């Protein structure tokens, strides 16, 4: 697997574009009491996806970045960068483009990048898995969950034919 997901290194995005996309991802999965898309590095996952298995979405991003900038200028005359807006302003912009193919793609990519296997560049330090409680060990023994202890299996017939 090609080296990717290294902070500061992008293949598809320019540095400026990456800042914009990262700011969008940070509204989709914000950093609050717990880590969000920024800590997970969803933007690196997206950069990598667009140059590997999701190449056909490149145009959605290219076009989407232009439209995003246009929407920012339209709603906030004088502003040109999404990343430079306040959080409340950013949310306002994203609500205005919520149903576009661009936002749909960024949302799916951000979330996937948050919960993906870390070798894809996202979910760095497994912050996504830790948040939701996915152990990522790929090898478990029972009991699996809280309710297992209530199992009535002993009351089942013995399997006699």
């Amino acid at each position, binding site marked *: 697997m090609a080296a990717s997901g290294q902070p500061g290194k992008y293949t598809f995005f320019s540095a400026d574009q990456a800042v914009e996309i990262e700011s969008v991802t940070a509204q989709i*999965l914000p950093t609050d009491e717990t880590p969000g898309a920024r800590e997970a590095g969803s933007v690196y996952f997206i950069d990598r996806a667009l140059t590997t298995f999701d190449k056909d979405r490149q145009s959605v991003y290219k076009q989407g970045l232009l439209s995003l900038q246009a929407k920012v200028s339209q709603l906030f005359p004088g502003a040109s960068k999404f990343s430079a807006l306040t959080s409340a302003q950013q949310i306002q912009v994203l609500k205005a483009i919520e149903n576009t193919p661009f936002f749909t793609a960024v949302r799916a990519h951000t979330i996937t990048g948050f919960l993906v296997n870390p070798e894809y560049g996202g979910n760095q330090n497994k912050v996504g898995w830790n948040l*939701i409680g*996915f152990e990522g060990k790929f090898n*478990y023994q*029972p009991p699996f969950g809280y309710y297992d202890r209530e199992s009535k299996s002993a009351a089942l017939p013995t399997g006699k034919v």
Partner: protein
Amino acid sequence: MAKYSPNTQVDFVVVGSGVSGGIMAKELSGAGFHVVVLEQGDYLREKDFRYDQIQRTSHSSLVAEDPNLATFRQTDKDKAVLSAAFRTGRCVGGGTVHYSGSSWRHHESDFHERSIWGPIAGTGFDDWPVTYAELEPYYTKVEWEIGYSGLGGASPFESPRSKPYPLPPMPNKSSGVLMERAAQKLGYHAVPVPVAMLSQAYRGRSACNHCGFCSGFGCHNGAKSSSLSAIIPGLEKSSHCELRPNAYVREISTDSSGKVTGAVYFDVNKKEVFQKAKAVIVCCNGVGSPRLLLMSKSSRFPDGLANSNGVVGKYFIPGCGASAHGVFEHELNEYKSVTTTRAIEDFYSADPKRGFFGGGRLDARGNTLPTAFALGGLPPGTPTWGSEYKKALQNDFNRTMTVQGFLTCLPLESNNITLDPDVKDAWGLPAIRVTYKDHPDDMKNKAFFRERALELVQAAGAIKSWADPVREERAAGHTMGGCRMGNDPKTSVVDKFHRAHDVPNLYVVDGSSFVTSARNHPTCTISALAFRAADNIIKASKNGSIKAPAA
């Protein structure tokens, strides 16, 4: 493994290496016949399988990825559009490599349900030409030879069995425990789900380590009893069988007398090869088999092979579903272990009091993997991004359970597989065109089971619960019908032993033989039918009707 030249006339070409193709090849080569298995996909081994969510959701080497493989429309008045919803297994081992492993026997009644219920106007609802009693020894053979875990006799609705399962059921998961809780409250019977998985080491194969990557993934340690893990290793050792991966069959050839002479396939370099054979066995399941017969046109068979009555492709059954979900107080951790461990069969039988034909089985399961859950598993009305979304994701991922119904799906003549006149796949072959619209009774049955599923989730103690809307089917995980079996050559494609009515040395053995849907979960029955078909060919050869090769 044996090696045959395409010019050598082998006894059988088996098209497809899924569970039915695997079993046919195993049994026939074991009886001394010379067999070549042609598999369209790659030969992936257990070491090739990865715990990779991206491979499942976006790019899988296990299924046919070609975007031009299939099209879908609801009626013959609609224009079919490209559909990714009819992807079939495309690797050595077929669909059993990536299936979840739930593998139920049909019930006795499933084989003669038309006699029980009566005719249903406008449908091809019919009895099967085989009974449960005839198939029972083969069900047992499947469970023991392929390696199943379950608890025979646990379900009061189960039909008689001659032997218990070889292995105990999988450990119960929290979803299964909650199903037990709900069933007890409502007076139903929660029973262990039989799975083609090894709960303990068996015949040299490892036990399941509960990694949770079952549905959509190949099993890393061979504990899933797929054709790949349970059957193919035996073929590898056989001196009478050659397994040829990356061999995509485009036509079954015939001579002027109307007998099959072999199969033409594209090899890995897309070069055409003709493999000579005395007989051909098609094992490409509910969409692949009718397509191959329809593609095998000749002056003698202008409408496709074995299709003089026009039935090939008709009565296609994708199976119907209904589901409800609940969020619970504590963690279920449904991402661990097999997909489902408990089910109820209390509504299996159709009941005239409901006012429509239909029945089904409901199982309890989780929405297993993080990315799939995050993109589609949260309750309706949950914000789809932002802090509130993140909080819901954090709380619900491990606390959500689904009750999933596997329901009857009536066989209709108008639901069919045809060749798309416009779309061609990556090999230049006509795409599979699926035409499917649910019968009104199927829709009523879905609404009924939607309520039952919701009731179960609520009785299990969910804090929050919701049911998915009743939907028309536009996809198929289980492809059944299309080359239905029957005693009457005018209304069926193959006879009760899967031999084509029209062509004496052609067999179709897979889910396409199904006459009715039963309650979905076709794999155990497909496997039993294959053992039975092989047994019959072997017996018939001893009677001289099919000549075995000289030793």
